[in-house]
């Protein structure tokens, strides 16, 4: 086969192109035989079959992209038409997926060889990946009539999310804006201050580090009910759980970071007869910044998990963890997923903000500026 020798396509790309074309051809035959296939789907599998001509005629990569789009739209259009999806429908899904993979492969190759701008199209690949995942999820759950209790379709989750905005906002305020942020600030702040004290005194280092270690080893499920008894049902007890979870990573990382300044850099400060606080502020804390930001990033996701889990153990009738635990009981799984989506977006955004600040503050570090040490 001449396609195998064409140098512009790698072996993987050849395989994907062949798969897409042949699956389209098979789907075309089945669709024509059934006689009731919707027109857009027929058009997609028909055009897809034609791409087998790339054996003789080079097909530009954006044709693969257009076919992927056409296939996705035809599949979505065909979804509600059937009670049970026929075989050619699933074949078309496979072909659409193969075109998407082929398109992304060829696009990333084009970016590598600088045929297209990586600045503009570099973003297309991850976005396409996320959309493809949602798309397959949507088509499979609806096409195969997956029970909503097992896995609702993304569109159902989205509809439910839009319909319950006031509930979700109230939960977000209760859990994220109160418990997570307050607990995160207190836990990280306390870990940082204790780290500086520990660093100053070997006595505290021996005494406090093991206690910090001990607290971090306590299971959330164990401390959450106790914190509820100590601090009440409202967000304060959840913030206390978050403090317990975030304290230790910050303590350990800051202590490690404070020893990052090299001996020559410290000697330099000594030759200037610099005071303890001058050395701390002008040398040791800046040198520790990459470690401190590491802890801030780890803690940003830990805090959200801690607050949500803690709400399983007694809470007023609002909060993300409370909503998840009660709505699961009522089999409102789509609302649970909507809550999960909010938590995922909030957690990622929180992490992203910290990572952006890190880039701005530790711009000088080799890992950020992409240089050597």
């Amino acid at each position: 086969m001449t396609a195998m020798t064409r140098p512009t396509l790698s072996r993987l790309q050849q395989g994907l192109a062949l798969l897409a074309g042949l699956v389209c051809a098979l789907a075309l035959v089945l669709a024509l035989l059934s006689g009731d296939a919707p027109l857009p789907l027929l058009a997609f599998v028909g055009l897809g079959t034609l791409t087998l001509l790339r054996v003789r005629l080079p097909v530009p990569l954006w044709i693969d992209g257009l076919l992927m789009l056409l296939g996705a739209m035809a599949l979505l259009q065909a979804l509600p038409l059937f009670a049970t999806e026929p075989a050619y429908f699933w074949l078309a899904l496979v072909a659409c997926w193969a075109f998407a993979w082929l398109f992304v492969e060829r696009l990333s190759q084009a970016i590598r060889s600088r045929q297209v701008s990586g600045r503009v199209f570099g973003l297309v690949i991850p976005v396409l990946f996320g959309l493809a995942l949602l798309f397959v999820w949507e088509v499979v759950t609806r096409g195969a009539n997956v029970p909503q209790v097992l896995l609702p379709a993304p569109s159902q989750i989205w509809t439910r999310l839009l319909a319950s905005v006031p509930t979700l906002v109230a939960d977000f305020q209760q859990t994220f804006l109160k418990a997570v942020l307050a607990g995160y600030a207190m836990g990280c702040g306390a870990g940082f201050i204790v780290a500086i004290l520990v660093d100053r005194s070997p006595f505290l280092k021996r005494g406090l580090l093991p206690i910090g270690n001990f607290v971090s080893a306590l299971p959330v499920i164990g401390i959450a009910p106790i914190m509820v008894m100590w601090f009440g049902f409202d967000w304060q007890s959840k913030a206390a759980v978050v403090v317990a979870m975030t304290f230790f990573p910050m303590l350990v990382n800051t202590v490690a970071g404070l020893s990052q300044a090299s001996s020559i850099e410290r000697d330099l400060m000594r030759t200037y007869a610099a005071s303890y606080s001058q050395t701390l502020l002008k040398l040791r804390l800046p040198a520790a910044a990459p470690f401190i930001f590491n802890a801030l990033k780890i803690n940003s996701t830990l805090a959200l998990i801690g607050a949500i889990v803690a709400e399983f153990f007694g809470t007023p009738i609002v909060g993300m963890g409370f909503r998840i635990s009660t709505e699961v009981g009522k089999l409102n799984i789509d609302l649970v997923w909507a809550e999960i989506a909010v938590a995922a977006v909030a957690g990622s955004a929180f992490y992203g903000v910290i990572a952006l600040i890190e880039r701005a503050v530790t711009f000088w570090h080799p890992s950020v500026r992409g240089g050597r040490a």
Partner: protein
Amino acid sequence: MTELAPSSQDAMAVVRAQNLGLTFPTNDGDVIALSDVNLTINKGEFVSFIGPSGCGKTTFLRTIADLEQPTSGTLTVNGTTPSDARLNRAYGYVFQAPALYPWRTIAQNVALPLEIMGLSDKAERIARTLELVNLTGFENKYPWQLSGGMQQRASIARALSFDADLLLMDEPFGALDEIVRDHLNSELLKLWARTRKTIAFVTHSIPEAVYLSTKIVVMSPRPGRVTDIIESDLPAERPLDIRETPEFLRLAARVRDGLRAGHSYEE
């Protein structure tokens, strides 16, 4: 004899070591880093310390800087203890590595001692010292954007910025290539001529020591001690090609003999 008595000789002495010894306790027994060192560095001298590794030349410099404490003998810096001299900010120290803080620009690095010592007219001092080391125009660069030679020059500017009269330099050009090193050596001589500072300079390069110094201290290891002190009779004006003159070669030969003598009982 009282240590702080201002005799006519002491007025000239910036560093005075008498029977100085320093022993490091280690797990394998004591290591004698310095033994019975007697040495005077006078005001305005350029003194090089040369010797193989382990001879205590860096340790001696660090002792002057109060980064190590002697275990025997006496050491005065500007007529006071090294500790008081350090607290008085009596010296600028240039390390083997530039040790510039990567989160500060070159100008901010030079400003670091000024901030710590609370000195005024920062901008003027930064401009003046960067001009001395030919780094004008690089104020806003970060250290990792400069070459190794430029980084070391910036660290010299930092040591000069607060106008200490004594400059301690610990193999500052050891990590640089020969051509950059030649260039920086002649720049350093010009700088010394302009500022009239007292310089103590550690090196393991014979040509570097002979080219730069008014006095060469030859040291040898195990235990670290001074084996020869050579007063240079080279003229103050030293172009780079002075290194081919017979006077220069004679001094270099004497330094080499001194180094060899220190090694004679080994191996």
